[in-house]
Protein backbone atom coordinates (compact mmCIF):
# COMPACT_ATOMS: atom_id res chain seq x y z
CA UNK A 1 0.00 0.00 0.00
CA UNK A 2 1.46 3.33 -1.07
CA UNK A 3 1.53 6.10 1.53
CA UNK A 4 -0.06 8.38 -1.07
CA UNK A 5 -3.04 6.03 -1.33
CA UNK A 6 -3.23 4.85 2.26
CA UNK A 7 -7.04 4.86 2.12
CA UNK A 8 -6.93 1.81 -0.18
CA UNK A 9 -6.37 -1.80 0.86
CA UNK A 10 -3.92 -3.90 -1.17
CA UNK A 11 -5.11 -4.94 -4.62
CA UNK A 12 -7.30 -1.90 -5.27
CA UNK A 13 -5.75 0.67 -7.61
CA UNK A 14 -6.38 4.38 -7.08
CA UNK A 15 -8.95 6.13 -9.27
CA UNK A 16 -8.54 9.35 -11.21
CA UNK A 17 -9.47 11.54 -8.27
CA UNK A 18 -6.98 9.87 -5.93
CA UNK A 19 -4.21 10.10 -8.53
CA UNK A 20 -5.02 13.75 -9.21
CA UNK A 21 -5.01 14.62 -5.51
CA UNK A 22 -1.68 12.80 -5.06
CA UNK A 23 -0.11 14.90 -7.83
CA UNK A 24 -0.95 18.14 -6.05
CA UNK A 25 2.26 19.92 -5.12
CA UNK A 26 2.74 20.97 -1.50
CA UNK A 27 3.22 24.64 -2.40
CA UNK A 28 3.15 25.91 1.20
CA UNK A 29 6.21 23.98 2.43
CA UNK A 30 7.99 24.46 -0.93
CA UNK A 31 7.54 28.25 -0.80
CA UNK A 32 8.63 28.39 2.83
CA UNK A 33 11.74 26.37 1.97
CA UNK A 34 12.53 28.73 -0.94
CA UNK A 35 12.15 31.76 1.33
CA UNK A 36 14.45 30.03 3.80
CA UNK A 37 17.04 29.58 1.05
CA UNK A 38 16.72 33.29 0.24
CA UNK A 39 17.21 34.23 3.88
CA UNK A 40 20.21 31.91 4.09
CA UNK A 41 21.66 33.54 0.96
CA UNK A 42 21.17 36.98 2.54
CA UNK A 43 22.84 35.80 5.72
CA UNK A 44 25.86 34.44 3.81
CA UNK A 45 26.13 37.64 1.75
CA UNK A 46 26.11 39.82 4.86
CA UNK A 47 28.66 37.62 6.62
CA UNK A 48 31.04 37.46 3.63
CA UNK A 49 30.84 41.23 3.05
CA UNK A 50 31.09 42.26 6.70
CA UNK A 51 34.72 43.45 6.37
CA UNK A 52 33.89 45.86 3.55
CA UNK A 53 30.56 47.03 4.99
CA UNK A 54 30.11 50.44 6.67
CA UNK A 55 29.28 48.71 9.92
CA UNK A 56 30.92 45.36 10.56
CA UNK A 57 28.86 44.67 13.68
CA UNK A 58 25.68 45.66 11.84
CA UNK A 59 26.45 43.13 9.09
CA UNK A 60 27.15 40.42 11.63
CA UNK A 61 23.90 41.10 13.47
CA UNK A 62 22.05 41.17 10.13
CA UNK A 63 23.64 37.86 9.12
CA UNK A 64 22.60 36.32 12.43
CA UNK A 65 19.03 37.61 12.06
CA UNK A 66 18.78 36.28 8.49
CA UNK A 67 20.20 32.94 9.61
CA UNK A 68 17.64 32.77 12.42
CA UNK A 69 14.82 33.56 9.99
CA UNK A 70 16.11 30.85 7.61
CA UNK A 71 16.19 28.26 10.38
CA UNK A 72 12.71 29.29 11.55
CA UNK A 73 11.31 29.03 8.02
CA UNK A 74 12.84 25.57 7.53
CA UNK A 75 11.35 24.40 10.83
CA UNK A 76 7.90 25.75 9.88
CA UNK A 77 8.21 24.11 6.43
CA UNK A 78 9.06 20.75 8.04
CA UNK A 79 6.19 21.10 10.52
CA UNK A 80 3.76 21.94 7.70
CA UNK A 81 5.07 19.08 5.55
CA UNK A 82 4.62 16.58 8.37
CA UNK A 83 1.16 17.93 9.13
CA UNK A 84 0.10 17.65 5.49
CA UNK A 85 1.59 14.30 4.59
CA UNK A 86 2.35 12.40 7.75
CA UNK A 87 -0.72 12.23 9.90
CA UNK A 88 0.12 11.33 13.46
CA UNK A 89 0.28 7.53 13.48
CA UNK A 90 -0.11 5.82 16.84
CA UNK A 91 2.36 2.98 16.51
CA UNK A 92 1.49 1.79 20.01
CA UNK A 93 -1.98 0.83 18.76
CA UNK A 94 -2.05 -2.50 16.97
CA UNK A 95 -5.23 -2.74 14.90
CA UNK A 96 -6.41 -5.51 12.60
CA UNK A 97 -9.60 -5.98 10.61
CA UNK A 98 -11.01 -9.26 9.40
CA UNK A 99 -12.08 -9.55 6.66
CA UNK A 100 -10.71 -6.55 4.78
CA UNK A 101 -12.94 -7.37 1.78
CA UNK A 102 -16.66 -7.48 2.54
CA UNK A 103 -20.04 -6.35 1.28
CA UNK A 104 -22.55 -3.87 2.58
CA UNK A 105 -24.53 -5.46 5.40
CA UNK A 106 -21.61 -7.69 6.40
CA UNK A 107 -19.73 -7.45 9.68
CA UNK A 108 -16.06 -6.73 10.15
CA UNK A 109 -14.21 -7.95 13.22
CA UNK A 110 -11.78 -5.40 14.60
CA UNK A 111 -9.05 -6.30 17.05
CA UNK A 112 -7.15 -3.74 19.08
CA UNK A 113 -4.09 -4.30 21.20
CA UNK A 114 -2.35 -1.46 23.03
CA UNK A 115 1.37 -2.17 23.13
CA UNK A 116 2.18 0.80 25.36
CA UNK A 117 -0.78 1.89 27.58
CA UNK A 118 1.31 4.69 29.10
CA UNK A 119 1.02 6.57 25.80
CA UNK A 120 -2.77 6.81 26.04
CA UNK A 121 -3.42 10.38 27.14
CA UNK A 122 -7.04 10.67 26.00
CA UNK A 123 -10.10 8.61 25.24
CA UNK A 124 -9.20 5.38 23.45
CA UNK A 125 -11.68 4.51 20.72
CA UNK A 126 -12.03 2.08 17.88
CA UNK A 127 -14.40 2.61 15.01
CA UNK A 128 -15.66 1.91 11.54
CA UNK A 129 -15.47 4.97 9.32
CA UNK A 130 -16.50 5.79 5.79
CA UNK A 131 -15.01 8.93 4.27
CA UNK A 132 -16.33 10.69 1.19
CA UNK A 133 -13.63 12.38 -0.86
CA UNK A 134 -15.47 14.96 -2.90
CA UNK A 135 -14.21 17.61 -5.28
CA UNK A 136 -15.22 21.19 -4.61
CA UNK A 137 -14.52 24.45 -6.36
CA UNK A 138 -12.55 26.82 -4.16
CA UNK A 139 -12.74 30.49 -5.08
CA UNK A 140 -10.17 33.03 -4.02
CA UNK A 141 -9.57 36.70 -4.68
CA UNK A 142 -6.26 38.55 -4.92
CA UNK A 143 -5.59 42.07 -3.65
CA UNK A 144 -6.92 43.53 -6.90
CA UNK A 145 -10.16 41.61 -6.55
CA UNK A 146 -9.41 39.18 -9.37
CA UNK A 147 -11.20 35.91 -8.84
CA UNK A 148 -9.49 32.55 -9.34
CA UNK A 149 -10.75 29.02 -8.94
CA UNK A 150 -9.07 25.78 -8.07
CA UNK A 151 -10.24 22.23 -7.61
CA UNK A 152 -9.81 20.79 -4.17
CA UNK A 153 -10.63 17.35 -2.79
CA UNK A 154 -12.30 17.54 0.61
CA UNK A 155 -12.77 14.70 3.07
CA UNK A 156 -16.02 14.26 4.97
CA UNK A 157 -16.80 11.36 7.26
CA UNK A 158 -20.22 10.06 6.20
CA UNK A 159 -20.38 6.98 8.45
CA UNK A 160 -18.81 6.97 11.92
CA UNK A 161 -19.24 4.29 14.52
CA UNK A 162 -16.77 5.07 17.31
CA UNK A 163 -16.77 2.99 20.48
CA UNK A 164 -14.88 3.64 23.67
CA UNK A 165 -12.51 0.90 24.80
CA UNK A 166 -10.59 0.33 27.99
CA UNK A 167 -6.84 0.80 27.39
CA UNK A 168 -5.95 -1.58 30.22
CA UNK A 169 -8.14 -4.44 29.03
CA UNK A 170 -5.52 -6.10 26.84
CA UNK A 171 -6.53 -7.36 23.41
CA UNK A 172 -10.10 -6.40 22.56
CA UNK A 173 -12.30 -7.61 19.75
CA UNK A 174 -15.32 -5.70 18.50
CA UNK A 175 -17.70 -6.35 15.64
CA UNK A 176 -18.95 -3.61 13.36
CA UNK A 177 -21.71 -3.95 10.80
CA UNK A 178 -21.52 -2.04 7.54
CA UNK A 179 -24.95 -0.41 7.02
CA UNK A 180 -26.64 -2.11 4.05
CA UNK A 181 -27.77 1.17 2.50
CA UNK A 182 -24.51 3.05 2.98
CA UNK A 183 -21.90 4.00 0.43
CA UNK A 184 -19.60 1.27 -0.87
CA UNK A 185 -15.91 1.60 -1.62
CA UNK A 186 -15.52 3.50 -4.83
CA UNK A 187 -12.66 5.21 -6.66
CA UNK A 188 -14.08 7.82 -9.00
CA UNK A 189 -13.27 11.00 -10.87
CA UNK A 190 -15.04 13.62 -8.75
CA UNK A 191 -16.11 11.59 -5.73
CA UNK A 192 -14.79 8.50 -3.92
CA UNK A 193 -15.83 6.65 -0.80
CA UNK A 194 -13.24 4.94 1.39
CA UNK A 195 -13.83 2.66 4.39
CA UNK A 196 -11.48 1.95 7.25
CA UNK A 197 -11.27 0.45 10.70
CA UNK A 198 -9.52 2.94 12.90
CA UNK A 199 -8.26 3.22 16.45
CA UNK A 200 -7.59 6.64 17.91
CA UNK A 201 -6.78 8.47 21.08
CA UNK A 202 -9.33 11.28 21.14
CA UNK A 203 -7.85 14.36 22.78
CA UNK A 204 -9.36 17.77 23.34
CA UNK A 205 -7.79 20.67 21.46
CA UNK A 206 -5.06 18.47 20.02
CA UNK A 207 -4.73 16.17 17.03
CA UNK A 208 -5.79 12.57 17.62
CA UNK A 209 -3.04 9.96 17.17
CA UNK A 210 -4.60 7.10 15.24
CA UNK A 211 -3.93 3.87 13.39
CA UNK A 212 -5.99 2.89 10.34
CA UNK A 213 -6.68 -0.33 8.47
CA UNK A 214 -8.30 0.35 5.08
CA UNK A 215 -10.99 -2.12 4.07
CA UNK A 216 -12.89 -2.58 0.82
CA UNK A 217 -16.70 -2.67 0.97
CA UNK A 218 -18.32 -3.99 -2.20
CA UNK A 219 -21.90 -3.07 -3.16
Amino acid at each position, binding site marked *: MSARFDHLPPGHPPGRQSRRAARTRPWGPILLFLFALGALGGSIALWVGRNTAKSKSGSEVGAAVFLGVAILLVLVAIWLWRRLFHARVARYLDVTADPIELRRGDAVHATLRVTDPSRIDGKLQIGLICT*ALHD*VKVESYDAQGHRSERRSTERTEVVTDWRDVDPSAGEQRLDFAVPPDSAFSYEGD*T*VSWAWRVSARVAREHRSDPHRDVPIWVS*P
Partner: protein
Amino acid sequence: MKLELVVDDRPYAPGDWVRGRVEVREGGHSRRLSVSLLQRDRTADYTGVVRTIEGPELARGDVAAPASFEFSLQVPADAPPSYADSLGALYWEIDAKSDERGLDTHARHAIVVLPASR
Protein backbone atom coordinates in the same frame (compact mmCIF):
# COMPACT_ATOMS: atom_id res chain seq x y z
CA MET B 1 -29.82 18.63 -35.30
CA LYS B 2 -32.14 17.53 -32.51
CA LEU B 3 -31.99 14.05 -30.98
CA GLU B 4 -34.17 12.24 -28.48
CA LEU B 5 -33.36 9.07 -26.58
CA VAL B 6 -36.08 6.55 -25.88
CA VAL B 7 -34.98 3.96 -23.30
CA ASP B 8 -37.00 1.54 -21.20
CA ASP B 9 -37.16 3.21 -17.77
CA ARG B 10 -36.44 0.26 -15.53
CA PRO B 11 -33.56 -0.63 -13.23
CA TYR B 12 -30.79 -2.68 -14.84
CA ALA B 13 -28.59 -5.30 -13.26
CA PRO B 14 -24.94 -5.77 -14.21
CA GLY B 15 -24.82 -7.80 -17.42
CA ASP B 16 -28.27 -6.65 -18.57
CA TRP B 17 -28.81 -5.24 -22.03
CA VAL B 18 -30.17 -1.71 -22.35
CA ARG B 19 -32.29 -1.45 -25.46
CA GLY B 20 -33.65 1.74 -26.92
CA ARG B 21 -33.69 3.98 -29.94
CA VAL B 22 -32.41 7.36 -31.01
CA GLU B 23 -35.09 9.50 -32.60
CA VAL B 24 -33.91 12.21 -34.96
CA ARG B 25 -36.38 15.09 -34.49
CA GLU B 26 -34.48 17.60 -36.63
CA GLY B 27 -31.96 16.51 -39.25
CA GLY B 28 -28.69 18.19 -40.08
CA HIS B 29 -25.03 17.86 -40.90
CA SER B 30 -23.34 15.07 -39.02
CA ARG B 31 -20.17 13.08 -39.48
CA ARG B 32 -21.22 10.20 -37.28
CA LEU B 33 -24.13 9.25 -35.07
CA SER B 34 -23.26 6.91 -32.23
CA VAL B 35 -24.40 5.81 -28.80
CA SER B 36 -22.44 4.88 -25.70
CA LEU B 37 -22.94 3.95 -22.07
CA LEU B 38 -21.08 6.15 -19.57
CA GLN B 39 -20.22 5.50 -15.96
CA ARG B 40 -20.17 8.96 -14.42
CA ASP B 41 -19.93 10.65 -11.07
CA ARG B 42 -20.59 14.13 -9.82
CA THR B 43 -20.41 16.50 -6.92
CA ALA B 44 -22.17 19.84 -6.58
CA ASP B 45 -19.30 21.50 -8.49
CA TYR B 46 -17.89 18.88 -10.87
CA THR B 47 -18.95 16.07 -13.18
CA GLY B 48 -16.66 13.32 -14.42
CA VAL B 49 -16.65 10.32 -16.73
CA VAL B 50 -15.08 7.22 -15.23
CA ARG B 51 -15.72 4.68 -17.97
CA THR B 52 -17.09 4.73 -21.52
CA ILE B 53 -18.61 1.66 -23.15
CA GLU B 54 -18.75 2.43 -26.84
CA GLY B 55 -21.86 1.27 -28.60
CA PRO B 56 -22.49 0.73 -32.29
CA GLU B 57 -22.21 3.42 -34.92
CA LEU B 58 -25.81 4.21 -35.86
CA ALA B 59 -25.24 6.35 -38.96
CA ARG B 60 -22.44 7.94 -40.94
CA GLY B 61 -22.87 11.26 -42.73
CA ASP B 62 -25.80 13.70 -42.73
CA VAL B 63 -28.96 12.55 -41.02
CA ALA B 64 -32.45 13.47 -42.18
CA ALA B 65 -35.53 13.71 -39.95
CA PRO B 66 -37.60 11.89 -39.09
CA ALA B 67 -35.43 8.84 -38.48
CA SER B 68 -35.10 6.25 -35.77
CA PHE B 69 -32.10 4.07 -34.92
CA GLU B 70 -32.36 1.13 -32.55
CA PHE B 71 -29.45 0.17 -30.33
CA SER B 72 -28.53 -2.15 -27.49
CA LEU B 73 -25.73 -1.75 -24.96
CA GLN B 74 -24.66 -4.17 -22.27
CA VAL B 75 -24.14 -3.00 -18.69
CA PRO B 76 -20.71 -4.39 -17.67
CA ALA B 77 -20.75 -7.40 -15.35
CA ASP B 78 -18.58 -5.48 -12.85
CA ALA B 79 -20.68 -2.31 -13.00
CA PRO B 80 -20.98 -0.53 -9.65
CA PRO B 81 -24.58 0.33 -8.83
CA SER B 82 -26.04 3.79 -8.98
CA TYR B 83 -25.58 5.57 -5.67
CA ALA B 84 -26.01 9.09 -4.34
CA ASP B 85 -25.64 10.88 -1.05
CA SER B 86 -25.51 14.54 -0.10
CA LEU B 87 -21.89 14.91 -1.25
CA GLY B 88 -21.81 13.10 -4.57
CA ALA B 89 -23.35 10.59 -6.89
CA LEU B 90 -22.30 7.67 -9.06
CA TYR B 91 -24.61 7.17 -12.01
CA TRP B 92 -24.90 5.61 -15.44
CA GLU B 93 -25.97 7.43 -18.55
CA ILE B 94 -26.76 6.60 -22.17
CA ASP B 95 -25.25 9.22 -24.46
CA ALA B 96 -26.37 9.56 -28.08
CA LYS B 97 -23.92 11.77 -29.93
CA SER B 98 -23.90 13.37 -33.33
CA ASP B 99 -20.30 14.19 -34.20
CA GLU B 100 -20.44 17.54 -35.94
CA ARG B 101 -18.19 20.44 -36.94
CA GLY B 102 -18.12 22.67 -33.87
CA LEU B 103 -20.25 21.62 -30.95
CA ASP B 104 -21.62 18.08 -31.07
CA THR B 105 -25.27 17.35 -30.45
CA HIS B 106 -26.07 15.06 -27.52
CA ALA B 107 -29.12 13.39 -26.08
CA ARG B 108 -28.58 11.87 -22.65
CA HIS B 109 -30.64 9.58 -20.48
CA ALA B 110 -29.68 8.37 -17.00
CA ILE B 111 -30.40 4.76 -16.10
CA VAL B 112 -30.46 3.08 -12.70
CA VAL B 113 -28.03 0.19 -12.21
CA LEU B 114 -28.75 -2.16 -9.31
CA PRO B 115 -26.18 -3.95 -7.15
CA ALA B 116 -25.11 -7.36 -8.40
CA SER B 117 -27.14 -10.09 -6.73
CA ARG B 118 -25.33 -12.09 -4.06
